[in-house]
């Protein structure tokens, strides 16, 4: 039987994968994608809890509303983030995180 535990572990592994990507990769776009992956992993947790913590016999839609907002905000954030990356690329001709050294001490 598939239990809540299964979902949570899938979400946890996905999150860890995303985190590993952020640490290991140097391409800023891929780092960004890994961040999105982590966000989605968190969403999975929320949806799983919403389904398993019933309110009056129905899924907890408050959690799903939160997921909805998360997705919306993530979409906006991606748009802005990618615009920043494009601006960065214009000035540095690179998307390597190491290329941005202005603030490096």
């Amino acid at each position: 039987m598939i239990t809540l535990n299964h979902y949570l572990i899938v979400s946890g592994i996905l999150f860890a994968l995303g985190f590993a990507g952020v640490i290991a990769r140097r391409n800023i776009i891929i780092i960004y994608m890994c961040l999105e992956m982590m966000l989605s992993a968190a969403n999975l947790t929320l949806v799983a809890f919403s389904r398993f913590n019933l309110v009056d016999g129905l899924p907890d839609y408050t959690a799903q509303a939160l997921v909805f907002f998360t997705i919306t905000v993530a979409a906006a954030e991606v748009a802005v983030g990618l615009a920043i990356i494009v601006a960065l690329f214009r000035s540095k001709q690179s998307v390597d995180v190491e290329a941005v050294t202005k603030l490096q001490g």
Partner: protein
Amino acid sequence: MPPLLFYLFAALSLGFGLMVVLSRNPVTSALSLAMSFVGLAALFISLDAYFIGTIQILVYAGAVMVLFLFIIMLLDIKEEAEKRSSLGAIVGAILVASVLSVQIATVCSSLSHSKQSVADSALKLQEAGAEMTASGKSLATITKDLAAGELPDTKLMGLTLFSQYAFHLQVIGLLLLVGTVGVVVLSKREKEVAP
């Protein structure tokens, strides 16, 4: 949902997630992420969250990832563009990821109600419908669906969003507007001064 499908989609999601991290080609990464999101959306749907699942595909796979792909292609980022990550970073990443997974697994397994399956917490649609009808704070179309034993997922979602979170929804709308304006401003090339 049959366990087979769960494992299938979980594997889809995680496998492509791994591809995102491992792939040298940014386009492969982006497409893998899109596929991973599709798998994730299937998991959402397996949790009776049809609306969220659809939105996940519509927004993430359909729009956000296309945007990523666009940027990758427009900036023409090649495979070779990325220098190899240092060994330390890779080891660190693997270390953090595995320890985090183990920790999460341990914590989740120790939760008291994490052993319950979907069958254990079955939806009580008719009861919920009856209660909603009694309290009179719902729409006829929702109670009708509930009485018929269907979960009107999107309608309930809409009800929650537009009644309980109406203000938040507007704030999000404003945020999107600000985001749009911000992106336009950011991506505008500075005009070159005519000599």
